[in-house]
């Protein structure tokens, strides 16, 4: 699904992603873990086609990407963003937000598809004509997921999809994401600073630091604490929580 080699991306003068190479197979869930400034969000935006200043070789969903300004996008790659309050247009109702991708690609039967999308993410029909400010954080994120899925993409990129949500809601959204992937055979690339979430949702994980992948390991290995690189070990230690000195 994804083949990247020597991928380098810049943010003005800084190099955010530095010679990163990796592959993601069809149907796989690939996680990228890193702290702030690691470049993981920039990497995701390059994969989405939203960030233009990059070089290297990149093939996504069978299409080779060319750096620089692209034209309109095909809809095969979709993204769920971190902030549920910023990822929906404040003046568009749920119905409009879900209907627009369909209208752009001239896909008919919009009403039925929208209803199906809402049901798939666990939202009631009553939410259909509400505006974002009338929905809770969890509900907005479900709408964002529905929007990402309505064009039936093959690859879904997830940028910290649950960090801005309450803990109980996080658990629900994660289980929703897991279920949807199983049902539709989607490929995920999940970016997060939270090791536990990445280990729970993904098959394979890459640890990113200052623009580079320092280690790639399976989620099972991560969960068992078998990391080789010292930075990964540091992250594992830190994510186990603080133990106070008594």
């Amino acid at each position, binding site marked *: 699904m994804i083949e990247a080699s020597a991928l380098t991306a810049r943010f003005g003068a800084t190099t955010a992603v530095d010679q990163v190479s990796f592959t993601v197979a069809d149907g796989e869930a690939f996680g990228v873990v890193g702290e702030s400034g690691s470049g993981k969000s920039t990497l995701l935006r390059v994969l989405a*086609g939203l960030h233009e200043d990059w070089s290297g070789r990149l093939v996504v969903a069978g299409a080779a990407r060319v750096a620089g300004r692209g034209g309109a996008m095909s*809809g095969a*790659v979709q993204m769920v963003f971190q902030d549920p309050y910023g990822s929906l247009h*404040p003046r568009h109702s749920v119905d409009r937000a879900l209907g627009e991708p369909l209208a752009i690609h001239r896909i008919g039967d919009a009403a039925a598809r929208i209803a199906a999308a809402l049901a798939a993410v666990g939202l009631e029909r009553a939410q259909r*004509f509400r505006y974002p400010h009338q929905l809770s954080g969890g509900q907005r994120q479900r709408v964002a997921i529905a*929007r990402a899925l309505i064009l039936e993409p093959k690859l879904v990129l997830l940028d910290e999809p649950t960090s801005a949500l309450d803990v109980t809601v996080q658990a629900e959204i994660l289980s929703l994401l897991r279920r949807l992937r199983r049902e539709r055979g989607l490929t995920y690339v999940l970016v997060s600073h939270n090791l536990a979430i990445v280990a729970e949702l993904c098959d394979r994980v890459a640890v990113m630091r200052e623009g580079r992948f320092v280690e790639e390991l399976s989620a099972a290995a991560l969960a068992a604490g078998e990391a080789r690189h010292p930075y990964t070990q540091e992250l594992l230690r830190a994510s186990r929580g603080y133990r106070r000195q008594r």
Partner: protein
Amino acid sequence: MRAAAWHDWLTAEAPGSARQARLAEAYRLLRAFARHRAGMTGLVIVLLLVAAAILAPLLARFSPSAQDLALRLKPPDAVHWLGTDELSRDIFSRLLYGARVTLGIVALVTAISAPLGLAIGCTAGYAGGILDAGLMRLTDVFLSLPRLILALALVAALGPGIGNAALAMALVAWPPYARVARAETLALRGSDFIAAARLAGASPARIVLRHIMPLCLASVIVRVSLDMAGVILIAAGLGFLGLGAQPPTPEWGAMIAAGRRYMLDQWWVAAMPGLAIAVASLGFNLLGDGLRDVLDPKQR
């Protein structure tokens, strides 16, 4: 009761259709605005102004150009509520008909300058690069010249008259709207929902028209209503200099100009139109304040 039923429908928890949702939003904004006392005062003033303009033929007791030379420069009394001017015309009637001129100019100027400024600003902000730089330099050129002087120059070139005055003022008024729209666009451009629209395949035109412009609209509307006071004053200024409406069409600024000579003894000839201008400006200012407080997206 019907009103209660409407209210319930408009504040329903789960709107059943897109139309209901849109009306419910409008209703919410209206109620928020109704709570804002300054804004409501401004709205009332503006509505009275509009009513005066529309109903001028019914409310005026005399024709604005009717002269009865025995009654020159009469102070306000029971017959001529605001007195008569130097050509013995009833000032009250002239003010009413003058409201038409003033509102007409304001409407024309807004209709041209606001969409123009919004379009230029949003396009420049979203496109970036050379287009942005070019449009902004153009805006800077217009902004660097004092508005009244530029309007003067344009009217002098085009010839005096209401239409030309309105056109000149519109050409002078759009730059601040472009600036405001561009600033908003720059802030919105990096938003996640814009990224999501791009991922859905939306073209830049679609994004600017349907996603960005509606969000810039609020700021531009506020700016426009606050500017209207200035437009009224510039129109009065042009009229004062004889470059706006031509006699005998009543225009508040021209009325002040004509009344200048009599200011010491027959103060009402200049003061009444001056008061009208002040009240109209105040009304638009208060309305703008109310709109800004209600439409500010940060408060939602």
